[in-house]
């Protein structure tokens, strides 16, 4: 495969950015759910 460093850089950057945002959203959602459940028992449902 020619131009391999460029291809690896482009795909690596994409995985890093998209994966980073996905992970951040997932962790933020879990954190908010736990805090809300601690404050409001109705939110556990």
């Amino acid at each position, binding site marked *: *495969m*020619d*131009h*391999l460093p*460029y*291809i690896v*850089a*482009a*795909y690596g*950057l*994409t995985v890093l*950015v*998209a994966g980073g*945002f*996905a992970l951040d*959203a*997932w962790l*933020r*959602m879990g*954190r*908010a*759910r736990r*805090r*809300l459940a601690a*404050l*409001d028992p109705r*939110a556990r449902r």
Partner: protein
Amino acid sequence: MDAPVSVAPAAEASPRSLHRFANPGRFLRLSGRVLPWLAGIALVLTLVGLYWGLFVAPADWQQGDAVRIMYVHVPAAWLASAGYFSLAVCAVLSLVWRHPLADLAAAEIGPVGAAFAALCLATGSIWGKPMWGAWWVWDARLTSVLVLFFLYLGHIALIRAFDDPQRGYRAAAILALIGAVDLPVIKFSVDWWNTLHQPDSITLTGAPSMYIGMLYPLAICALGFSLGFAAIVVARMRAAVMERRIRGLLMARAQEHTGMEAA
């Protein structure tokens, strides 16, 4: 401090209107059911598309294997524009109908759209170096996408620039509407000016000028990336709705506590 999310009374909102989704509780229930499917399908499609593009699709006779960068660059470019278009739609929903979730959606779409615009610029630059011999040229397509990235940054900054969040949302919505002018400029820049960037290979009106063996993985990547973008935005919106509810509960408790002390 953000204002607590207003809950639209179900009786006032027509069941067919967009305001049926204005109730944060209803949004949380609905999105909670949709999100796992959205994320799962997005992940599978993206992985299949990227594998196909990297290892199965043929190399280009001129560009060689560097053409494989297309499978991440093109979806990122489409989503950068589509993300900004959705900001403009949220702006209309907010300014005209005062939809309570429109501002929240805009606040959560902005950073994701900015990241995809940056990704488009970065992967384009990485593709440009071996093909054009330069990381960057002040070409109309590249420059208009750079302007789009700055518009995203402006939108994010405006939302956070005011003590009263409603003023921030309003200013950002106006910028989103004005900035939407950049979208047709991006689309037609390769037709209006002589650019180093190649013309579109896929158009709404004509047959694609791309080999079918490259078109399929590109379409799958584009669909996977789009669903992934939507899943990230929905997850961020769910978190934002819950965070507002938390702030509202804490404020109510603090007020109760202050009232009891005063009594």
